[in-house]
């Protein structure tokens, strides 16, 4: 009986050792939570959540210091996905927060004085220009964060809603005729 115990213990030790070694050797680096949260956030870097960018907000969410419903550009859909990821209840967007239609900033070239203040404000370097030269916004890179609006001393930047065209047009959700019957 003693030998049987020994044998079983030895087998257990060997297998345990193999498993322990494998868990270190073949360890799969899991995405840290911050990265996962950051992947859901819309990356407008607008700061409407009260944090200086999406990454800091993601870090705060991951630490449990911030609520998940503070991101208006992400909308209800974004809140839902965050809730799914974190295993909490989805909730409506925070008070006074409403998702706006997607827009891009446009500089009125006649008014721009070339002060470079908006260039410094842009979180994604989507404004091109130099001192005393006219500035222009690279529309394809603009996230619509509106951070360039307040610094402009001549108020020459306006937000333009992105219009629906043949390329970004989407098929609509089919209307439920069932509801009419009921």
């Amino acid at each position: 009986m003693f030998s049987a115990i020994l044998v079983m213990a030895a087998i257990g030790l060997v297998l345990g050792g193999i498993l322990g070694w494998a868990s270190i050797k073949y360890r799969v680096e899991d995405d840290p939570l911050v990265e996962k949260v950051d992947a859901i956030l819309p990356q407008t870097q607008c700061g409407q959540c009260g944090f200086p960018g999406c990454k800091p907000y993601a870090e705060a969410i991951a630490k449990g210091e911030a609520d998940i419903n503070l991101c208006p550009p992400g909308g209800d859909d974004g809140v839902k996905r965050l809730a799914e990821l974190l295993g909490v209840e989805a909730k409506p967007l925070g008070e006074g927060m409403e998702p706006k239609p997607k827009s891009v900033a446009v500089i009125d070239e006649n008014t721009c004085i070339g002060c470079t203040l908006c260039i410094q404000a842009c979180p994604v370097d989507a404004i091109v220009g130099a001192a005393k030269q006219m500035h222009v916004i690279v529309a394809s890179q603009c996230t619509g964060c509106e951070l360039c609006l307040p610094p402009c001393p001549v108020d020459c930047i306006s937000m333009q809603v992105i219009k629906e065209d043949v390329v970004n047009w989407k098929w609509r959700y089919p209307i439920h005729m069932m509801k009419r019957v009921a």
Partner: protein
Amino acid sequence: MSRTLFTFNGGVHPDGHKTESNGTPIRAMPLLSRYVVPMRQHIGAPARPVVAVGDAVLRGQTLGAAEGYVSTAVHAPTSGRVIAIEPCAAPHPSGLFDLAVVIEADGLDQSIAFEPLDWRALDPSALRNRIREMGLAGLGGAVFPSYIKLNPGAQKIHTLILNGAECEPWITCDDRLMRERAPELVRGIEIMRHALGSATILIGIEDNKPEALAAMRAAAPSDMEVVAIPTLYPGGGGKQLTYTLTGVETPTGGRSTDVGIQVFNVGTAYSLYRAVELGEPLISRIVTITGHVSNPGNFEVRVGTPLSDLVTAAGGMLPGASGEIVGGPMMGFDLMDSAAPVTKAVNCLIIKNSKLFPGKPIELPCIRCGACAKACPADLQPFEMYWYSRAKNFGRAQSYNLFDCIECGCCAYVCPSHIPLVDYFRFAKSEIWEREREKSGADQARIRHDFKTFRLEREKREKAEKFAKAAEKTKAAASNPSEASAAVDPDAEKKKAILQAALERAQKAKESVAPRNTEDLPPRVQREIDEIEARRAAVETKTESTE
């Protein structure tokens, strides 16, 4: 020469309604006064307008040049003047306007000099470039630029399939084309063979078109095989036709070229013949107009012809018309604006009435009968995709291979609950595309934001380092001037040397200039000087001793 045919799973047998329009020969459209030529008539990037408002243009002149790789050119359908380049109504399910060149015809219909190509002597690559400039795009409905499809690339295209199945109900434009213009069509196929180097050529035609089969068999040389395939919708789908003829399945998410097969519509082959052998760009196509019109049939229509003018040419709508469908009843869409023009993609216009096309029945709950899965020619499970699309759970919908759905409409056709399944799939697909776009935009924004943060930090660091260095230097200079300057400034040695040299030069100059009034002095003056010197010396020793 009987070929073993394969039968794909599923498929439906809708009423053909072919006889309404296939009995009369192709008619020519009268010349119009105004044409609207959209720049986006093909898959990929829209053409870039190369004419300006006010320009005089000739038939066949390039209006828009191909922009980017997946693109092709657009040409003037007649001679006249460009009166506008602006967004106009387009044949699109959204009814949204799209950029178009509007031409006011001068009625002369003068053309540019068409240059026929000696394609047999031409290198396939040069031929493809020419085809790109000629504006060729697949006329079966997908309008993919033909020059790309005619490039075998690394893949060897052993089989070339010509799609003359025309499986959609009501449409007969390919049927009439094959009946009337088979010899020219076959010459177009030969050009395709030249470009692709395919050994086997199969021309698949549904057996409900015996006249077209006979005409093509008469025109085709012995090394092209005209195959009658059973009439079964969607037998003309690229993947389904490939399977029917060869038994080869196209891999999921792939193209038939992945298995060495290329498929072209017969209309494309005919247009290719005209483009290459006659030198005429793609400025017209055959369009079926049928349904509730007084004189249905097929017309050879210039690209840019407003659809309302096509209806007029077919004798106008009959009383009680309730709408128009662009394309077939299975895959087409309701026309929003009849000012929209015929494009390279438009093969059919059906005028609806309430008898032929009764309104959509009321959608009832899914009873999980599985009829849609049995009818699906792509071997999908439409009911599962429907659940998830309806619940907006797009990830799950995609995991059921939503993107292998060809939107043929068989599932919705057989559904006993009249669920518009394809509408859900289209909705889900465009939502997924939108998310992909948003995600790639967000990824770019993240990268750019990270870089900006990095850049700002780098600038701050560099500035701080610079200040620190300067501060250190001043401090060191204060405590140990020579060492500090030598240690901090590598140029110090050089500067010092320059300074030293200048000093030496000055010294030398000083030495070389002898004071004039100190030599050969008279003894009296010398004595005075000696006295003064002795006095000064005495004073100096005195002060030194007191110190």
